[in-house]
């Protein structure tokens, strides 16, 4: 750890990239962050002069899809320098050391870079039964995260697992899977949502921290505004079909061939905040809606429990699988109708005297009145 730290630029050169590659990468990052073109220089300068951010990348209850997404970033430099170098400090999946050595390098990073390193957490923390569902090196994941977060500059919660618990937190959540923000306090926490998050979004957040030395602007759910301020629906290229009321009815109908809106196929785009429609996936090749599949809302908390994926309205709890709120509502409407009819009948029977008596009154009571 004592040897001189290299800058990102130096590392890129060592890897055999040209300056041109490097500048292109800086421009791409600036664009992803939504910066003006005048800021490209700022990004390039930061990458040129600043030494890498020490990163501890922990893996808890997860499937490693965030890592998978990250190393498939559209620019090879992302994987090569951001991931390769930053994650050298400690990451269970990709680091070189093992066993006690690995645990030592974790401790070294924490002590050598106190308050400077970024803690990236992939996966949720199980808390039931004292957290025994995820133990590494004899410690529960909860303990590991707490220790590592104590001296971190900031905590990055990668993906839906770390941000909201994802599938393992779906009902009935047997292991008590808990997102990071509920366990850690006193540190800035950035929720990089998605299952997985888009690689360029992950890289963008890191580049922002590097360039500006600060946390990107976050929304109320701790998501970076640059990437999560708009709904998939707002940037969806099928949106004109939505407004025109042209909907796909089934995956093999004429409307599907015409590329109509997938709303009636259960598209969660209107309630999902993510950058898919803009950045797309796999080097900007496509995204689910573009390939004809509705958005399942993977960057929203509780998207597993708000299923089914192919219906826009969720099931109504407690009434079986096929019950939507509409069916329950209609049922209640019928019950109400029957109740009111019964009431109308009993009214006429039980209050007949009242009704009859009054009708006779003009004749019988006339004498009294005068």
């Amino acid at each position, binding site marked *: 750890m004592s040897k001189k730290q290299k800058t990102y630029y130096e590392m890129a050169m060592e890897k055999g990239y040209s300056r041109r590659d490097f500048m292109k990468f800086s421009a791409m990052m600036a664009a992803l962050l939504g910066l003006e073109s005048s800021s490209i220089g700022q990004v390039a300068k930061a990458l040129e002069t600043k030494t890498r951010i020490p990163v501890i990348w922990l893996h808890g209850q997860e499937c490693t899809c965030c890592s998978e997404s990250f190393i498939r970033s559209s620019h090879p430099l992302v994987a090569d320098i951001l991931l390769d170098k930053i994650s050298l400090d400690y990451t269970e999946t990709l680091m070189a050391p093992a066993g006690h050595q690995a645990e030592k390098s974790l401790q070294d990073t924490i002590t050598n870079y106190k308050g400077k390193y970024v803690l990236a957490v992939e996966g949720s923390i199980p808390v039931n039964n004292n957290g025994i569902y995820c133990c590494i090196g004899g410690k529960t994941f909860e303990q590991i995260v707490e220790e590592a977060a104590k001296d971190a500059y900031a905590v990055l919660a990668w993906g839906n697992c770390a941000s909201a618990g994802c599938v393992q937190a779906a009902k009935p959540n047997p292991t008590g899977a808990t997102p990071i923000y509920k366990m850690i306090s006193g540190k800035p926490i950035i929720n990089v949502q998605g299952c997985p998050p888009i690689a360029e979004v992950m890289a963008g957040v890191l580049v922002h921290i590097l360039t500006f030395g600060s946390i990107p602007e976050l*929304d109320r*759910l701790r998501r970076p505004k640059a990437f999560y301020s708009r709904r998939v629906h707002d940037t969806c290229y099928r949106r004109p079909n939505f407004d025109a009321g042209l909907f796909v009815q089934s995956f093999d109908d004429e409307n599907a061939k015409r590329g109509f809106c997938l709303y009636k196929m259960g598209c969660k785009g209107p309630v999902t905040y993510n950058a898919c429609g803009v950045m797309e996936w796999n080097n900007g090749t496509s995204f689910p809606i573009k390939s004809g599949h509705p958005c399942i*809302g993977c960057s*929203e908390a509780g998207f597993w429990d708000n299923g089914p994926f192919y219906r826009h309205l969720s099931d109504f709890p407690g009434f079986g699988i096929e019950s939507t*709120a509409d069916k329950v*509502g209609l049922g209640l409407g019928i019950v109400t109708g029957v109740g009111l009819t019964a009431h109308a009948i009993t009214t006429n029977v039980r209050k007949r005297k009242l009704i009859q008596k009054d009708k006779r009154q003009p004749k019988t009571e*006339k004498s009294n009145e005068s």
Partner: protein
Amino acid sequence: MDPTTLVSKDRLYPVYVWQLPVRFYHWINALSIVVLAITGYVIGDPPAIQSATEAAFSYWFGTIRIIHFIAAYVFFFNFIIRIYWGFAGNRFADWRNFIPYTKKHWSDMWDVVKVDIFQVVSKENPRLGHNALASFTYFLTFLAFLVQVLTGFGLYSAMSASWLASLFTWVPPLFGGDLTLRYIHHLFMWFFILFAVVHVYLVFYHDYIERNGVTSSMIGGWKFQEEGKVEGEKELEK
């Protein structure tokens, strides 16, 4: 022959119950809820149209949504005015009618349940304004209004830059996101539909049994009560 004697042995005493703002509120509210429920249902489950048109030539779904949003604004401000009138209006419009914070209100409610639902024949005279149970039900609807306003404008805040909508940006995080918000918003629509059915039925029922002109009272403002039995008659006479 005095026409009033045709109606009842006692003279009917007209009382001005619903002031103009209350009547306006009622009908604007009713209309906007009908529009909101219909457009809302269509937004939740749009009809299927097989069509070969291009999206550029049609905007009907967008129009439905705009109508929904405009009706929502009407509904919202109308309700604000009604809240104001709960402090400025007459004793029948007063906000205190709606919140059952006294023992008397609860026992009155029980009486209404006995008379109107269990159909016990009562000697008591019906209350002139809202009956105890009705006013409590309206209190519940006000809470439902609140839920719909919060969830509706919460959802709307993502697609609007208006200051009013941006007052509600804190709502989605509270519910964990738009997914849940949308669900609650849809669920409560059914409350309004069921309320409307029961409400209209009961108005007709009361007109039939009590014959105090409750149906037309929401148009003209007058209700009728037998003389000598009007609560607060003395003050009204002044």
